[in-house]
């Protein structure tokens, strides 16, 4: 589809437009806070303080951000190929099996740096496998990827309940979770990274998988903008018919893209399972797969945008917990509203303010041109 709007300068396109959308989302969220009878400014103060006030808080913020970088990248990779992967939630959930298997197998005998690579491979494999079927069905049988991935989220949830209550649960235990892993199944914290900045990590579970997330972000940038496959994916995303005309195999790209996307979503499981809980629990994903949609939309599907967007949602999650502690009438569900508003304004209504912004910039640049002309004369 052709873009009916004039081209804007880069900083406007990637900086100003998302910021305007974000600002509107927060304004509406502020209205909800007012409706509840609380002061939005006070809520904002608790949000910022809760996210950055102490080293420990920053650790938690970055811990959440790690999760969202993975799921945001997963959604973004699919977006580039014109695919909408709503199934990040399910892929991350199933990816947890890979992590849990690696940990249960080796945690008592091997150190974490042996278990970790295996867990990475495991999570990526299981996540990719869960995304493979929707991708394959889209490519070969023409079934709509959005619907199949939604269905797969529900199927994943049932499957995991089954596995955790019947198979992976230790004998004699009542709660639906694996046993707690030994030393080898737990990731070291990044306390040294925070202590460089003079911060104390406290109990925050900010761990090595953050570094993996950064590597993954760089990897996605390489893949999308520096490889042949990435070029093909973007071509297909812009114009499937052009891709077909250029002899690219649509079905191959669809399946591979979905598997990469699923692998990234699956790797998210490393952070809560190995990094925080030290075991796999029911519902450990906690909606992170859906947050990934908001993150990818905010970050305009570019890793450089996704990382700050993920940190933003980390702030919301950590700061939101603080708000609900200080202001009991605003529970953590406030985050869900903000998440929805961001998806609405940065995603579905992304063009709402664009005409106004375009007008602003086209007139100012024309004026600048006129000024330049008169100076020249």
């Amino acid at each position, binding site marked *: 589809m052709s873009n*009916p709007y004039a081209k804007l300068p880069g900083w406007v396109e990637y900086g100003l437009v998302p910021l305007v959308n974000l600002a509107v989302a927060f304004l509406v969220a502020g209205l*909800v806070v007012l*409706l*509840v*009878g609380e002061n939005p400014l006070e809520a904002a103060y608790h949000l910022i303080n809760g996210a950055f006030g102490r080293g420990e808080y920053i650790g938690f913020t970055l811990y959440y951000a790690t999760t969202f970088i993975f799921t945001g990248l997963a959604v973004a990779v699919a977006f580039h190929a014109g695919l*909408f992967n*709503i199934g990040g939630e399910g892929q991350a959930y199933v990816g947890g099996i890979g992590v849990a298997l690696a940990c249960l197998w080796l945690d008592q005998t091997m150190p974490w740096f042996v278990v970790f690579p295996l867990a990475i491979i495991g999570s990526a494999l299981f996540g990719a496998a869960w995304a493979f*079927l929707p991708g394959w*069905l889209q490519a070969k*049988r*023409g*079934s*709509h990827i*959005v*619907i*199949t991935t*939604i*269905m*797969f989220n*529900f*199927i994943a949830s*049932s*499957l995991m*309940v*089954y596995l955790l209550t*019947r198979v992976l649960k230790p004998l004699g235990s009542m709660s639906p979770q694996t046993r707690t892993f030994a030393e080898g199944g737990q990731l070291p914290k990044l306390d040294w990274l925070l202590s460089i900045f003079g911060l104390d990590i406290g109990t925050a579970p900010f761990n090595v998988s953050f570094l993996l997330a950064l590597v993954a972000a760089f990897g996605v940038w390489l893949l999308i903008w520096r490889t042949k496959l990435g070029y093909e994916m973007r071509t297909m995303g812009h114009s499937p018919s052009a891709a077909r005309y250029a002899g690219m195999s649509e079905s191959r790209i669809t399946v591979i893209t979905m598997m990469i996307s699923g692998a990234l979503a699956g790797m998210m499981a490393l952070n809560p399972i190995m990094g925080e809980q030290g075991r796999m629990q029911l519902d450990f994903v906690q909606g992170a797969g*859906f947050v990934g*949609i908001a993150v990818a*939309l905010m970050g305009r599907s570019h890793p450089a945008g996704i990382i700050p967007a993920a940190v933003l949602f980390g702030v919301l999650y950590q700061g939101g917990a603080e708000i609900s502690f200080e202001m009991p*009438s*605003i*529970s953590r*569900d*406030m*985050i*869900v*509203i*903000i*998440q*929805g*508003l961001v*998806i*609405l304004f940065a*995603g*579905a*209504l*992304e*063009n*709402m303010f664009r005409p106004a912004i375009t007008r602003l910039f086209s007139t100012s640049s024309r004026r600048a041109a006129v000024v330049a002309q008169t100076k020249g004369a």
Partner: protein
Amino acid sequence: MDFFHVIVVLLESTIRVSVPLIFAALAGLFTERAGIFDIGLEGKMLGAAFAAGAVAAITQSVWLGLLAAILISVALSLVHGYASITQRGNQIVSGVAINFIVAGSTVILGEAWFRQGGRTPALAEGARFQTINFPFADTIREIPFIGPIYADLLSGHFILTYLAFAMVPISWWILYRTRFGLRLRAVGENPGAVDTAGISVIWMRYRAVICCGILCGFAGAYLSLAMTAGFVKGMTAGKGYIALAALIFAKWRPFNIMLACLLFGFLDAFAIRLQGNPLPLIGQVPVQLMQALPYILTVILLAGFIGKAIPPKAGGVPYVKER
């Protein structure tokens, strides 16, 4: 006789759980036939259920509750319409957004207004729907076979239940036998042709979206005013997605929708009934498998292994008038 009794009970609960699915799937039928994908059925239903529960609790009037449900649901539909028709945004993104906004705000507002952990107060007799008993239901119940069918299956449901089943032929009639329906379907298949005929594609789609809102309003009101006495947080519990699955499973046709919803409702009722009891011949079936079955069936259908589900041609594509 005992077996027969079990069947009757099972079918009765099938009907009870199918009603919101039928409303929601028919709601989806109207928008999707007009070319607008709607992932937001879940959110609209939840918003409607909350509005119904809250208003009925405050006013003690079931009808005002129903009205509030419809108003909120239509308002949410219009947001979806504004994003996807006027702003030509991504329809799926917009639907996802609505689901989140509603999921969060029903809890926040419910907690702020009623302080019962995201619930609305339990509704008294007059503030919720009552079941309607057909004449002589109690006398006829004693007659073998026909008695229980008349007394338990046909009689003794809520007015919304009868409305849901009545909406199936009504929707069919609207979509296939009226000018409005013809144009609505045309807008979903070939909006350009409709535009050429001098009919506003935009207005047509907005009307479809409003129809969807009204029906989702009924679905939500049924949940909080009939099925239970009040709103409980997250009470739709994926029913909107099951309705979406049913809509696709039914290949976007009204009567098939009713059958698909009854099938999915039956699976649900059956899973609850089963709860750990082994099935004859098959043995123990995990409850989780039964719960996942509607989704699995839909995936298999979508893959074209049970017939082919062909969506409306212009579905998901915003209409841009040629210049």
